[in-house]
Structures are given as structure tokens and as C-alpha cells.
């Protein structure tokens, strides 16, 4: 299984008692930082450095009651970004909330998307499409299909901007 698994993955051969084993679950690091392991991703460098910068925020970072980044929310946001990644779409802006939450923003050719990660599976998102003054608001939990559709539309908006 993958490195999320709690299986110990040690098997005993009942015929001759040899141990058949496979090792998994490595996670050893030396510094607090975010790293992306897939080197060809266009988002990698931008998001690596941005999240590492946000991890270093101390309480009161905003001059008021700003809280440190919530690590559980960060873990979920990173997981979400892996799913939202769209080849050809620029990486989002990442803005910390004063309550430890994380906001992701895209602004492409009049198409705006904001995704607020409030907690794992507690996402508040909105978008504004070109030509409209209205915002569409959605709450997302486990099914992120609508956010994926928005990513595809953002990518098209970005492509149109380059063509224009």
C-alpha cells in the first residue's frame, strides 16, 4: 500500500516459516518546509516557497491576533491542490487567514476563483465569470467536482488571455 497506510506489511510464510516482508511508510525530514516531489509540475516551485514562508508565520503575524497556520488545514489544502492541479493553469495565490485557515485565489482574464479552506472537508468557494457582476458561492465537502470544473474554465480563460 502507499505511504499513508498503517499496515505493517510483514508476512509469514506458513509453509516454511520464512518471513516475506516489504517495507513502506517513510517520512523523515530535517527542516520544516513544504516540498513537492513531482519535479515537472509547473506549480512546484511557486507553492513550495510560498507554503514554506507561511509555515514560518508566528502568532500576531498580521499585527493583531493572527494565528499560526493550522497544520491540519495545511495538510488538507496540500492534498486538495494535488487534486486541483491542471496542466496549463497558473498556480494560485495563497493567502493565510488570521484564524489559521488558507485561501487560494486565481484571477485569469476576468475569471476569479477564491477557495477558502476552513477545515478538512469544509471548503467555502466562490467564482465570478467574465461579464457578470455576481459571485457564485458554493460549500464543498468531499465531492470536489465543481472545483475541478472551475479549474478547467480558469485554464481556458488563461489561454484566451494569452491568445488575446
Amino acid at each position, binding site marked *: *500500500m502507499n*505511504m*499513508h*497506510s*498503517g*499496515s*505493517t506489511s*510483514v*508476512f*509469514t*510464510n*506458513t*509453509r*516454511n516459516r*520464512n*518471513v*516475506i516482508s*516489504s517495507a513502506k*511508510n*517513510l*517520512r*523523515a*525530514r*530535517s*527542516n*520544516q*518546509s*513544504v*516540498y*513537492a*516531489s*513531482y519535479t*515537472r*509540475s509547473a506549480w*512546484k516551485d511557486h*507553492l513550495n516557497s510560498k*507554503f514554506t514562508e507561511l*509555515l514560518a508565520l508566528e502568532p500576531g503575524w498580521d499585527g493583531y491576533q493572527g494565528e499560526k497556520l493550522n*497544520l*491540519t488545514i*495545511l*495538510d*488538507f489544502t*496540500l*492534498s*486538495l*491542490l*494535488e*487534486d*486541483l*492541479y491542471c*496542466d496549463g493553469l497558473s498556480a494560485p495565490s495563497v493567502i493565510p487567514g488570521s484564524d489559521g485557515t488558507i485561501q487560494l485565489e486565481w484571477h485569469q482574464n476576468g475569471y476569479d476563483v477564491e477557495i477558502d479552506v476552513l*477545515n*478538512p*472537508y469544509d471548503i467555502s468557494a466562490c467564482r465570478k465569470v467574465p461579464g457578470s457582476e455576481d459571485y457564485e458561492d458554493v460549500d464543498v465537502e*468531499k*465531492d*470536489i*467536482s465543481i472545483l*475541478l470544473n472551475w479549474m478547467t474554465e480558469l485554464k481556458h480563460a488563461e489561454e484566451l488571455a494569452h491568445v488575446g
Partner: protein
Amino acid sequence: MIDDTSAENEISFSYPPLNEVVLDIQFAQIPGLLSIHANEVWELYKKEYPNIVEQPLLEPAFEKFGAVPQMNAPNFSVARPPVGSRYWFMTTDEKGLLQYQNDRIISNWRKQGDFSGYPRYERISSDFRKNITKFNEYLKQRFQGQFLKINQVEISYHNVIEIDNFREVGEFLNFLDLAHLDAEGVSFNAGEVINDKQGKPIARLSIIVNSLYSNQGKDKAITFTLAYRGKPNSEGIDDAFRFLDDGREKIITKFNGMTTAKAHQLWEKY
């Protein structure tokens, strides 16, 4: 797999290929709960789990639905200071294992020797629930009323099926026919989204098959793992264990449906 009797399914085997059962609860990190408190956590369980081993941390997992795997998608991880560890608290016979890290507790039953000691799911689940409740009470007392906010639950059954040749895989698993291939190894991975009655996704059932060799390479086997994972209806312990119960039912049904009649006979299904 299973010497597990479900009131609904009535599926049992005398000699199932079950090797490990894992119940896994992930929760939001508790403010103030540091690595140094791991010893206090061990004290909660030391009487039953007197042995301890240190392991690297496990990555968090969040099942989401609607996404299609992207080829160039980045895989992010947060590198934290090297003060965090995962601890294995083990029974003296090493069949029982409780894994602890600051955002996860996992219960493992592992086959050691023959199958006669399998305690059944109900007992494993009941013991795990007691241990989770104990930890929750510890949090409330030690960390000013903090309590578990569970955000992911997983149950998995790991089977090992000994074979002489990988051509035989289809004699046990009815979805893999390798009879016409002199395969040197096997790797299969499939996921199925499980929906509720309203059609909303609630969990992912993963099916994983891999080939296995003894250290000398003489003996062969295949691992057949069924894992059910997702977010329970609420952050509380009751819903977490309802999720585990539902997962176990799904896994038993799927295992029965994906293995052959010949295998059932060999494992003495009754």
C-alpha cells in the same frame, strides 16, 4: 478472508488467507500535544501493550471524490522538524499492535503463526473503541477540554495467498486471469467509490494485489488487500465506528464476490 461472521452476510472461513486487519483513525492535530507526551499516551496502554518500537510518521490522508489523476500533478508533503515519530505499542506476542502519532491512532491485528488466534472483528473493534475513548478522555483532562476531531477513518483487510506460480492467481481471484501469461510478478490497483442512498460519495474501496517472494525467492504468494476509507458523518467517535462497521461489511461482501468457489473450498467457507 475471514473468520468473521456478519449477521447480514453470514460469511465465515475456517482457514482464510487473512494476515492483518487494520483499523485506522485520523484526527485534527491537538494544540499543545507534543512528541514528548507520547510517553504519557503509552502509559494509558502499557499494561496490555508493554513493548514499544519507534517508526517514521505516516502521511495524512484525505479521500476526496470527483478528481481524475493528473500526470504532472505535484505531490506535496509538509516537512516537519524531526521530533515527531510514530510509536508501535505491542502486546507481548506481537499479534496486537496499537500505533500512535500526534494525528492518528491505528489498531493492527497481525497473524503470528497459525490462524487459531483471530479474535474476530467485533472484539478488535470493541477493544479499539475502548482505547480511542481512553485517549479522548486523556486529551480532555490533560489539554483543557480538547477532544478528538476525527477527519478520516480506514479499515483494511490484508490477505496473503500462497501459490506455486503466478499463473494460478485466477484460481483464487476471479477478476485476474493470468493463465496464459508466465508472469514474473503481479500488480493490480483499483478503486471504487461507495455512495450513500442519496447517491453522494462517502468512501473509497481500494483493491490492491501484489506479488510477494520469500527472501530466497523460492516461495511465491500474492497479497490481496481491501481497504475502505473516507470521512465519517461527523467528527465524533460514534460515527467513526459506524464507518468502520460499514466498511467491514463492504469488504466482506466484496472479498466473497471477488474470490473463486475453488478458493472458498480451500479456505473452508461455511
